[in-house]
């Protein structure tokens, strides 16, 4: 069974290719980290996979009707936009828009999402008055409330404090452990190494490596894709990854 299949996906911006011939299959139970330097095409790949961008090739999500897709995959964009001073609870409830469930189901999903992100105490606060990191957590809770088999997130943990970063990655790996699929772009390679079951390394619009973190985050790949030197070690407290230097 697959959750997302991309076949020969290409996206052009003008004449310049941003994504070229990417094929990829995601399965239930995978927490996939999408790694790559700025401008590698991470966001473009995810938006095209959702059908939000014009593309060549096929994406199983983009072929669905917009409502089917909204019930199949939750999307957490990089821009953290909260336009109006609504309460946290109301904002998270927006994730229920694609569903035509009962009030009780919606309330349960909203309460569950707030609990997962540790936001119960914030439910009645005004979302726009929270700090940036808190807003980011509220928006993740909104995507969780959408209660979809798949979640796609664009740099969801950027700007969060260390505890919140770990907690968020745990929420994602728990989702995967419960049989769902998470695809998230990340710049924190250490957290990717510890929490992702699979990482995909994207460079100049193409996939360079795809597999378990230990097999993908090799010195050669890191040098080629990020131009960095790093230390990777399997310890009795899990994998430890530390960036060391820029390669000249």
């Amino acid at each position: 069974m697959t959750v997302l299949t991309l076949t020969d996906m290409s996206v052009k911006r003008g004449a310049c290719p941003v994504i070229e011939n990417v094929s990829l299959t995601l399965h239930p139970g995978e927490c996939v980290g999408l790694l790559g330097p700025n401008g590698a095409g991470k966001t473009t790949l995810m938006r095209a996979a959702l059908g939000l961008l014009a593309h060549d090739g096929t994406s199983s999500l983009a072929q669905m009707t917009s409502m089917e897709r909204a019930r199949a995959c939750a999307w957490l964009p990089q821009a953290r936009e909260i336009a109006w001073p609504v309460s946290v609870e109301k904002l998270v409830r927006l994730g229920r828009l694609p569903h035509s469930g009962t009030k009780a189901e919606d309330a349960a999903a909203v309460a569950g999402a707030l609990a997962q992100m540790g936001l119960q105490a914030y439910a009645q606060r005004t979302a726009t008055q929270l700090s940036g990191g808190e807003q980011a957590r509220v928006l993740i809770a909104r995507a969780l409330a959408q209660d979809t088999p798949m979640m796609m997130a664009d740099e969801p943990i950027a700007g969060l404090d260390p505890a919140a970063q770990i907690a968020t990655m745990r929420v994602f790996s728990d989702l995967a452990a419960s049989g769902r699929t998470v695809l998230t772009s990340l710049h924190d390679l250490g957290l990717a190494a510890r929490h992702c079951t699979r990482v995909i390394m994207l460079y100049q619009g193409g996939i360079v490596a795809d597999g378990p973190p230990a097999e993908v985050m090799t010195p050669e790949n890191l040098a080629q894709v990020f131009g960095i030197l790093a230390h990777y070690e399997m310890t009795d407290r899990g994998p430890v990854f530390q960036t060391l230097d820029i390669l000249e």
Partner: protein
Amino acid sequence: MKLTALLISLCLVLFVTSLVTGTTPVSVWHSFASLFATDGSPMSVVMQQIRLPRALLAVMIGASLGVSGAAMQGYLRNPLAEPGLIGVSAAAGLGAVLALQTGLAAAFALALPLSALLAALIAVAMILSLAGPGGAALTLILAGIAISALASAFTSLVLNLSPNPFAAAEIVFWMLGSLADRSFAHVWLALPFMAVGWVLLGSLGRGLDALTLGEDAAAAMGVRLTRLRLALVIGTAACVGAGTAVAGSIGFVGLVVPHVLRPFVGGQPSRLLWASALGGAAMVLAADIAVRVALPDRDLKLGVLMALVGAPLFLHLIYKTRGTLQ
């Protein structure tokens, strides 16, 4: 729900007040009796053919401006947006001015509003072709500003070339906006357009709520943005175009009303739509009563009073919220 009940009662009280306000000195009770009288007495004519359509138009135009202002602010995610932004009111104004200038308005009664509606339609067609089907919100605003500027330029040209000061004065006075001396013909002309507009804009609630999270997130939640924008533009144009056609340009309602009511609906765009419709109706009714009470013999124009009251109110709001706006 408490807010809805409050706004509905406010509208009802103001509607009744509007019906019994006027230069003819008769008792409230007699006014009401005349409203339903079939004897053709002068007072029944006043009530049935002057004051009733006037009050109805105030409700219709206020609701139209309120709901389209709320929809426009919701779509653009900007509390400074207002229905005039897409250029339709300026275009409708130009249509009306052309009807006055060419003498068409004097030739038959509904020439002016019909000409205004036609100009509004042309403006919508131009907006939609300029902004394209899939463009961003910014393209829509820019197209609206361009069309607004063009329509205003032509209006100025007409004024500039106007043959005598009386013609110019007539145009200027019309542009100030008023509900005086309107008839049921105006109500029936505007109502179908406004009804279409209300239905279109009223259907946008879910999409506007989702847009709280930005266009990308909304699209991924199943909102079809192209369709939403089409409904928004056509709905706003129908509402504002018809309103301008029968009453001239009345500003500030679409800007101030959603702004005032937003805190009372918890910021939720879908709830703001209907609250703003009621709030807009109440505001225009109140203003139209005020122009008759304040200077009964000077024909104070509705648009003038609205700006006189609306601008300081807006300033007060900005003063109050300046600390919380980012």
